[in-house]
């Protein structure tokens, strides 16, 4: 440990570690300095000046997010002049911001609104010119609204530093600065992967998901439709937060009951299709392994990752599993197997998915995934949209009596549950692949090496004396670093799991906004959501996908066997290179070398 130094904050002395910023030191001592552009996972921007403090001997206020502590430093965080200065800063931001809080989607969930309240802004002193821009509605998933933007730059840094997509930039200058894709391209035509992380970190409503709640309410009232819904593993682990509950509570039963109350005729579980995905994916992996197919095989569940693949890594398309995502598989078996079983015209089925993800909206609309002229999933709503619909319909998710999912697409194994967190698909696949390959039961089914929030995780498992090397990456930036290793040494791994969002689906772009006194994508929060899924896995008697009795029945009655022609028709797809081609900066590529 390095030598402690003495600083004073608001006239009281404290011993603190050197080599940290004033904000970091103050946080640990319980002084919460207001902030806006700062995010602990992103580089320091120092743009908003909300976190200014007084430091004795300095001519001006300093931005505490960017200024390091030093021995003998005297800091004041809350003097009247400082409060006035901060209030003026927020007021000036508000002045160039639409004053439509009461009709804004982020009303009650907006960091700017919270800051304004905490600054005690009760009157307005400034009135000036305001920027006017059209909303960009071109993307299936992500809406960009520059009028709401306060230029904190969090989205730009998220998109380039964490996700390595580099779709956004601050173009032009001064009053005319706008966050936009290159060439002011519409989001729908840009390299945007639709991951929605810009929405997660945006303090206001400058980025939002494309909202389908109104359309869904209308269709739920259509008597001619059979309304079927599925929900992703990670939705149950996070939706409680939108109702003010602690992170990490599993709200599965309450969510099922609430969805029924909303008007759905059948509530299925995407975890069922996760088991189905494992059957297909593990079989595909073994097929490649035994017959000299392209390795390493890379998972294909994450739709943001799929768009990223097609634009940034077209050379790796042969490596990617042809399996559709669990959501699309569930949609496909809903409109075929289930429709046949219940003697329903599949065209009368409204297939809805509640997802932690914004990119799933994009995925659901992909023409490649259509079958028999139909989309597998008609409407995708995010966890946030579902939470709003449940509240809006007057349903008390917190106190409702939990219910069970419907059959035949509702039962799931523990392996299906952990799909929602980084490493989960790999762990689930290992559980099944091992048994399919060796014919023996895998005793130690909890694969610790692929759990946790480390950016790139590596592990290996021995099957009949053969070492299978696996790797897991979450967040597209980590994926980029892992895939560079693969490009350099294709034989290094056999099987790779990639999830587009930090933490996997639990950190998806459609998850509830950070609550008061929390930050978006807080690691503790992600761990708690993941833990909820691991606990769910542990509590299940069936923990391996191939033991799911309804999946076995589905094969017997409809699909025949994994990788059968019927499976290929409905559960598999193909990807192809798309433009504009994504570019990863040279320094990122060359930094990505071996870290063993």
């Amino acid at each position, binding site marked *: 440990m390095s030598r402690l130094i003495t600083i004073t904050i608001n006239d009281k002395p404290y011993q603190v570690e050197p080599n940290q910023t004033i904000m970091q030191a103050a946080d640990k001592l319980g002084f919460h300095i207001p902030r806006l552009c700062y995010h602990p996972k992103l580089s320091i921007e120092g743009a908003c000046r909300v976190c200014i403090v007084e430091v004795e001997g300095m001519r001006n206020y300093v931005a505490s997010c960017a200024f390091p502590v030093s021995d003998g430093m005297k800091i004041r965080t809350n003097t009247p002049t400082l409060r006035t200065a901060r209030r003026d800063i927020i007021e000036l931001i508000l002045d160039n911001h639409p004053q439509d809080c009461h009709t804004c989607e982020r009303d009650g969930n907006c960091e700017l609104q919270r800051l304004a309240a905490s600054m005690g802004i009760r009157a307005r002193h400034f009135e000036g010119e305001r920027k006017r821009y059209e909303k960009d509605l071109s993307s299936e998933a992500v809406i960009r609204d520059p009028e709401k933007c306060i230029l904190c730059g969090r989205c730009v840094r998220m998109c*380039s530093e964490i996700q390595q997509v*580099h*779709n*956004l*930039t*601050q*173009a*032009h*200058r001064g009053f005319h600065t706008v966050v*936009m*894709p*290159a*060439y*002011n391209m519409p989001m729908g035509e840009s*390299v945007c992967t639709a991951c929605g992380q810009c929405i997660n970190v945006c303090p206001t409503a400058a980025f939002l998901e494309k909202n389908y709640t109104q359309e869904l309410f209308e269709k739920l009232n259509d008597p001619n439709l059979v309304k079927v819904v599925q929900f992703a593993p990670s939705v149950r682990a996070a939706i409680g937060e939108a109702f003010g509950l602690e992170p990490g509570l599993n709200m599965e039963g309450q969510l099922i009951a609430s969805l029924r109350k909303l008007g759905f005729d059948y509530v299925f579980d995407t975890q069922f299709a996760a088991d189905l995905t494992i059957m297909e994916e593990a079989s595909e992996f073994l097929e490649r392994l035994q017959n000299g197919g392209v390795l390493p095989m890379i998972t294909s569940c994450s739709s943001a990752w799929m768009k990223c693949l097609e634009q940034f890594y077209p050379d790796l398309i042969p490596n990617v599993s042809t399996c559709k995502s669990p959501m699309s598989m569930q949609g496909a078996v809903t409109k075929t197997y289930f429709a046949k079983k219940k003697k329903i015209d599949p065209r009368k089925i409204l297939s809805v998915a509640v997802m932690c993800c914004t990119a799933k909206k994009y995925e659901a609309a992909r023409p490649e995934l259509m079958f028999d002229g139909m989309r597998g999933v008609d409407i995708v709503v995010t966890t946030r949209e579902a939470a709003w619909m449940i509240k809006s319909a007057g349903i008390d998710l917190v106190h409702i009596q939990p219910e069970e999912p419907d059959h035949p697409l509702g039962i799931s194994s523990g392996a299906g549950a952990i799909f929602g967190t980084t490493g989960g698909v790999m762990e689930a696949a290992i559980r099944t692949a091992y048994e399919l390959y060796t014919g023996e039961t895998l005793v130690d089914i909890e694969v610790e090496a692929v759990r946790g929030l480390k950016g790139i995780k590596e592990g290996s498992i021995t099957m009949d004396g053969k070492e299978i090397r696996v790797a897991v990456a979450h967040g597209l930036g980590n994926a980029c670093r892992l895939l560079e290793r693969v490009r350099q040494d294709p034989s290094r791994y056999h099987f790779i799991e990639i999830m587009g969002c930090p933490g996997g689906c639990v950190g998806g772009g459609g998850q509830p906004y950070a609550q008061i006194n929390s930050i978006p994508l807080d690691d503790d929060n992600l761990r708690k959501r993941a833990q909820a899924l691991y606990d769910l896995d542990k509590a299940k008697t069936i923990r391996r996908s191939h033991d799911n009795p309804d999946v076995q029945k589905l094969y017997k009655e409809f699909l025949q066997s994994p990788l059968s022609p019927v499976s290929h028709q409905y559960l598999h797809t193909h990807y192809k290179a798309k433009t*504009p*081609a*994504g*570019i*990863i*900066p*040279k*320094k990122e*590529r*060359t930094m990505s070398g071996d870290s063993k």
Partner: protein
Amino acid sequence: MTQVQTEKLQTLREAMQAARNDAHPESYLIGILHKVQEIFGYLPREMMDEVAQTLEIPTAHIWGVATFYHYFNLEPIGRYVVSVCMGTACYVKGAAGVLETLKKELGVEVGKTTSDGLFTLQEARCLGACGIAPVMMIGEKIYGQLDSKKTIDIINQYRKAAAEEKSAVGAEARRGKP
């Protein structure tokens, strides 16, 4: 792609040769964009893509730089760039009126190019010729002590010169026919 365009692209690629082998190609970006503008007169989107691919710099980053600096033109510019000095001295002597005259005469706003591709209208900050204010610069040439009539006369001289040149080229082309 025409012969001329191929040659231009070749020049740009040569200019990028040193940068692409550097560990930090992004540090060459502004210099390379200057080169693009020198070769093409503005920053065509295809050339920004070319720079992005060659130097492995995301297009969004290039776009951020290209839009930040007023020096970079994002649209093709006219044959003659007309810059009206809006510095203090010129302004006091009626530069705003000169600018209005030009907008009306050329039928374009500041930053835009006439439909015949002849003139691009720009504002400038002090051209250093305050003694003969108000001034404008066309190409490399300074015109001073402007008023409305004088401004239009100058523009008409350029129009006439361009028209004569065109008919001369036309005649040459006709003569060249078998």
